[in-house]
């Protein structure tokens, strides 16, 4: 067992607070819904980046390479000044939704290089230009660009020319859960010596201003010892902490309070405010900081001159051990930043290597292993403390839901039951610093590779009464909790359960039972709210696939009428299957769940059948094309399929789950009732896969698609002129490059063309595009389905892959092929290029960049270049799970063991022997 695994066990079994401190700061708190108190809900502009240095946040904090405790009381982050910028670099800069030609976008380069699941070791890289940061150029040039042009990135400004920049590495290492070593290493990559102001900052999140009877924390300087300077932090709930700073650093103190003079024009009550340290460092205003050396925000000010090609190191330590205790406990002469610091740091680095060696399949190349490790590092760094008391927020806006005199709130009016105050895995802490329900289900898939306990808690969190609406809806995201996300929570739940069962020999049945109860509420919400006609055909709006439809699927249709959604109905079919899986598992020991299993068996068949039968000859299945489409039902009763070949039509393929038949064997009366149900309704199975047919090893398959339909859909899906790209499955068929789908309504043209890169409209904010690019989560679901089909059909079911190639593959091989293509987005190809970086020369060629990986939100449909949010290890981190799976699994295991073999492969941990050395960037 590795030291890190031991820490995880201690955290679970002994409540050791190893996860108490972690990277829980946001990368952006400004411009969020929580901080928005505007009348019209203009969150992006209400609290701007320019205000952020001066205005105290209400609900969170942000910082560069930052950490905090798990309630974000005390925060630590980096601040920098190159002597030329107009402002201290305390947070990442980016463009708002309206400033950029492709929606909001961070304009910085930072990399999550490493993290263990307990954050016992973490590493972050920030690339800081030595020239003035081109804030105005980024805003002005982006404003001039159209949607048909690329985004203007930081590297395009020329600010990194001649390599005139600093590589600032921040490493954290925990000696104990409450004792954190911090090492900052500054490399000058440029041709000349350059000065850098290094300003590591410690502050308390402002809670005292926003409560009637506040407990105010305090930071103050203590007397240090030779070689270090010390500050004490005291919070009534957190207790005392100490920041030991190397050398005779100048400590600067102020208050984390709004500069009301700058923000509101009202004189400050105290001269020491949030931007005082910025004022001191950048403007040289000595009087800006408190000469009494106390406050609620402080920083250590170092002025470094770094020679070209050289580096300098600064060490700090954030600890609960007081100076006196350190000296007496460890013997005379021991300092917090002395030789033991190096020993602990090296030990944690080594333990991180050992941990990742234990979970990395030995068959992976060093580059593949690096991709896997950085994907997981990104997942772990993207945790954030998320605080949002919706009732309080509404009240503060004058929209108290229980007062007769209230203003309407621009959003989340009906979610006042919610109190969120937890560490949550975020999709991307700059672009999406808020949780999204269906993203989270995919995050857990990757996170459970390193921290199954955390993954389980994340799933459970969304079902708690502080999150889930009393009516059963799972919150979508803070922009509109009432929006509808695809129901993938049940799938992630049963996957996580099986993983734990494979690892430990038994699963957490109590967790599964309680999840089932809450998922039942969510299922019923869907059935009662999204099946307009009561005929098992579902709507849902855009359902996470933004601009994929010819019409905005979340707005009233220009034709009138309604849309019967192939994806919405398929999601519900899959939801039924997942609930059936859970019920079957629970029924293995508890007969009460056998009835629920029967319920979901039948309900699945109702839904699956509806996809083909409904409306006579206008169901979702198009026999001519061999594909599924949304159906437009017009007010005059007519119906029409909207023939856009997209992921919407592939999702019915995902609703496939294989069963071993254990339920029917254990409960013969359930089997009889099910057979009677089927015998009385032969039409139900006429157009779908017959669940009575046995497959390999006597398995049964719940599937919308029978074998004929499956082959026809696969023919398109695996056609490189349609969905199959060199880097995975496209969200829209390439067929629409030459054959756009066009509809004319009311004199207006609505068109869907194949768009492999960014969106060319502002629909849904314009920062996302489902009309061509490759999206990891839906690819993962298709891979899952293919493995299910393989477990049923076995080796005898083969298809041409790619279509027209003459090469036959079984469905395991097809799944593996898609996974390989997805991984190839990140792995260096035969010419040494990483497709994810497209034509960005610096990222491809420069040794200080080329092995630092960014996990984008989606990828170019033809060349795999990264698009959208640049740190979305949220669901793109699933690539780590895919790499691991196919290096750990063999097809015969599925044929022999069924789907539990997938969980067993997923749970596999390597032996103690170290895997080949991983190629990580220079320390």
């Amino acid at each position: 067992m590795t030291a890190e695994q031991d820490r995880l066990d201690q955290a679970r079994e002994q409540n050791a607070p190893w996860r108490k401190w972690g990277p829980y700061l946001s990368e952006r708190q400004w411009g969020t819904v929580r901080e928005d108190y505007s009348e019209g809900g203009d969150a992006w502009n209400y609290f701007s980046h320019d205000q952020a240095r001066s205005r105290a946040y209400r609900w969170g904090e942000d910082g560069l390479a930052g950490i905090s405790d798990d309630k974000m009381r005390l925060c630590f982050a980096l601040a920098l000044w190159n002597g030329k910028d107009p402002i201290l670099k305390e947070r990442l800069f980016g463009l708002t939704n309206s400033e950029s030609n492709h929606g909001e976008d961070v304009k910085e380069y930072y990399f999550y290089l490493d993290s263990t699941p307990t954050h016992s070791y973490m590493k972050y890289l920030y690339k800081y230009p030595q020239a003035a940061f081109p804030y105005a150029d980024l805003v002005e040039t982006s404003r001039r660009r159209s949607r048909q042009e690329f985004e203007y990135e930081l590297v395009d400004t020329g600010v990194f020319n001649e390599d005139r920049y600093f590589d600032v590495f921040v490493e954290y290492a925990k000696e104990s859960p409450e004792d954190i070593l911090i090492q900052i290493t500054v490399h000058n990559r440029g041709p000349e010596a350059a000065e850098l102001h290094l300003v590591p900052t410690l502050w308390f999140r402002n809670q005292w201003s926003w409560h009637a009877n506040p407990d105010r924390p305090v930071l103050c300087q203590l007397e240090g010892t030779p070689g270090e300077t010390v500050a004490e932090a005291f919070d009534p709930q957190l207790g005392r902490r100490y920041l030991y700073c190397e050398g005779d650093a100048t400590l600067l103190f102020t208050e984390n309070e709004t500069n009301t003079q700058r923000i509101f024009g009202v004189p400050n009550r105290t001269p020491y405010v949030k931007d005082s340290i910025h004022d001191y460092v950048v403007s040289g205003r000595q009087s800006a900081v408190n000469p009494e050396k106390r406050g609620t925000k402080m920083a250590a000010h170092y002025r470094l001159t770094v020679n070209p090609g050289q580096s300098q190191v600064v060490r700090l330590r954030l600890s609960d051990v007081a100076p006196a205790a350190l000296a007496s406990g460890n013997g005379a002469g021991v300092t917090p930043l002395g030789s033991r610091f190096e020993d602990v740091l090296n030990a944690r680095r080594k333990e991180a290597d050992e941990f990742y060696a234990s979970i990395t399949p030995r068959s992976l190349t060093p580059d593949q292993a690096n991709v896997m490790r950085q994907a997981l590092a990104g997942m772990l760094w993207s945790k954030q403390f998320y605080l949002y008391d919706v009732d309080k927020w509404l009240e503060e806006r004058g929209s108290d839901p229980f007062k007769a005199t209230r203003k309407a709130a621009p959003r989340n009016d009906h979610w006042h039951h919610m109190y969120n105050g937890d560490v949550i895995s975020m999709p991307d802490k700059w672009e999406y610093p808020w949780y999204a329900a269906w993203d989270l289900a995919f995050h857990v898939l990757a996170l459970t590779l390193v921290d199954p306990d955390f993954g389980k808690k994340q799933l459970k969190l969304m079902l708690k009464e502080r999150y889930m609406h009393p009516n059963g809806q799972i919150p979508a995201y803070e922009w509109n909790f009432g929006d509808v996300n695809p129901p993938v929570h049940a799938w992630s739940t049963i996957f996580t359960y099986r993983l734990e069962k494979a690892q430990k020999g038994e699963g957490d049945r109590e967790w599964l039972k309680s999840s089932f109860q809450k998922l039942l509420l969510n299922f019923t919400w869907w059935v009662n709210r999204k099946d307009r006609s009561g005929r098992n055909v579902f709507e849902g709006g855009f359902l996470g696939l933004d601009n994929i439809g010819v019409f905005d699927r979340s707005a009233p249709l220009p034709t009138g009428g309604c849309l019967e959604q192939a994806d919405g109905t398929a999601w519900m079919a899959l939801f039924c299957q997942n609930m059936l899986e859970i019920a079957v598992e629970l029924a293995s020991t508890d007969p009460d769940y056998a009835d629920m299993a029967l319920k979901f068996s039948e309900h699945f068949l109702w839904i699956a059948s509806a996809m083909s039968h409904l409306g006579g000859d206008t169901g979702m299945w198009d026999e001519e094309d061999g594909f599924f489409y949304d159906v437009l039902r017009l007010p005059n009763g007519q119906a029409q399929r909207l023939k856009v070949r997209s992921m919407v039509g592939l999702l019915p393929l995902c609703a496939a789950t294989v069963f071993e038949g254990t339920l029917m064997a254990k409960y013969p009366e359930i089997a009889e009732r099910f057979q009677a149900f089927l015998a009385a309704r032969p039409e139900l199975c006429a157009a779908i896969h017959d669940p009575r047919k046995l497959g390999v090893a006597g398995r049964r398959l719940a599937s919308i698609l029978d074998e004929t339909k499956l082959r026809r859909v696969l023919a398109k899906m695996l056609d490189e002129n349609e969905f199959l790209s060199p880097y995975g499955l496209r969200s829209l068929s390439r067929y629409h490059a030459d054959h756009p789908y066009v509809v004319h309504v009311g004199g207006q043209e609505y068109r869907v063309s194949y768009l492999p890169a960014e969106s060319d409209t502002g629909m849904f904010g314009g920062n996302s595009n489902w009309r061509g690019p490759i999206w990891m989560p839906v690819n993962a679901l298709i891979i899952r389905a293919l493995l299910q089909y393989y477990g049923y059909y076995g080796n005898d079911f083969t298809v041409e892959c790619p279509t027209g190639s003459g090469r036959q593959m079984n469905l395991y091989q097809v799944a593996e092929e898609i996974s390989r293509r997805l991984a190839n987005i990140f792995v260096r190809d035969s010419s040494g290029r990483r497709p994810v970086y497209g034509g960005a020369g610096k990222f491809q060629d420069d040794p200080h960049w080329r092995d630092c990986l960014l996990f984008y939100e989606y990828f170019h449909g033809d060349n795999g270049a990264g698009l959208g949010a640049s740190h979305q290890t949220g669901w793109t981190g699933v690539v780590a799970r895919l790499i691991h799976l196919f290096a750990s699994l063999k097809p015969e295991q599925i044929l022999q063991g069924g789907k539990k073999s997938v969980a067993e492969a997923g749970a596999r941990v390597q032996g103690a022997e170290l895997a080949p050395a991983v190629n990580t960037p220079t320390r």
Partner: protein
Amino acid sequence: MGKKSTTTPAGSTESEGLTRLLRQHGCGSIQFTGADNTLYERHLVSDNCSDATKEEPMPDPSKQLVAVFVDRSCRQWIVRDPEGNFWTLPSVELPWEKRQPYQPTAETELEPVPGHYKDMLRLPF
């Protein structure tokens, strides 16, 4: 939707009264103001909760709430208390204790300040 109809026939007879009753209860066209509370207005009209002959503007709830503003011209916090009175507050430790009456004029530009600043200003409500 247009504004509510204000027509009431002069010198009403029994038949005219019946006509009016039918119109009042939605048996003919009734105009509403077209706000979010349109359906609620129908109830007000139909159930004699309000007089259909009078134009009554909807109360603006925002004018009855405790609120904090800033008047940049005088660089002061402005507070509207639960009774709807306005006060200026200085930038001192306990500003409410040092409040002064304030009367906004038609030209006054009051910029709303988020509600959580009430606690920062130690307002007693």
